């Protein structure tokens, strides 16, 4: 079965540093998402992206966050100046054209020290 691929699997950074989390969605998918899960808590929606623009973003997705699809295959999440509370597992997801299930990657564990 096709997969959503995320790199790196773990990222450790110092508070205030910029991080870029990378994702390769399933190749013929059109809708792309980022979610995060703080340890033991719910899976929280951050942002959705379609046709090269943001479709929806949550209140978590403030000016410190940005997303980009720099080429035909990658989808990135940038955090400009990381805070301690950004420590979480970040999941990328994608889906095809209809209202259907999201396929999730295995996540990037971000630790901000």
């Amino acid at each position, binding site marked *: 079965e096709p997969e959503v691929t995320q790199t790196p699997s773990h990222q450790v950074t110092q508070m205030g540093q910029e991080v870029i989390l990378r994702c390769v969605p399933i190749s013929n998918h059109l809708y792309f998402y980022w979610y995060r899960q703080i340890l033991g808590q*719910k899976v929280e*929606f951050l942002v959705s992206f*379609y046709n090269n623009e943001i479709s929806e973003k*949550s209140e978590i997705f403030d000016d410190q966050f940005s997303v980009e699809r720099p080429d035909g295959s990658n989808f990135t999440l940038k955090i400009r100046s990381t805070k301690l509370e950004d420590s979480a597992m970040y999941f990328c997801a994608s889906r095809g054209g209809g*209202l259907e299930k999201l*396929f999730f990657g*295995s996540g990037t564990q971000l630790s901000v020290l």
Partner: protein
Amino acid sequence: DQQVKQNSPSLSVQEGRISILNCDYTNSMFDYFLWYKKYPAEGPTFLISISSIKDKNEDGRFTVFLNKSAKHLSLHIVPSQPGDSAVYFCAAFNQAGTALIFGKGTTLSVSS
């Protein structure tokens, strides 16, 4: 505010018995619901979905029931197996279809 609620943080059942996981939602405009299963340090994996035009959908051991008037859905697993032990998330697409909103999850433990 929570639009998708899973009020039971955990559930323990014996192997072979039925597991019933419950989910409530607040927005009557939601019309497509999904259940995901998640193991630690892995991404959520899709299990089963249901559209609001149906009240039941079945896939092998998994059945999802939807009661629109009560804004309630449930996932039945019969028979439960130890490999089913995981966190189960109920999720709903928002009205615009631009976000999939998750509940807090229920941790299912199936003992042999």
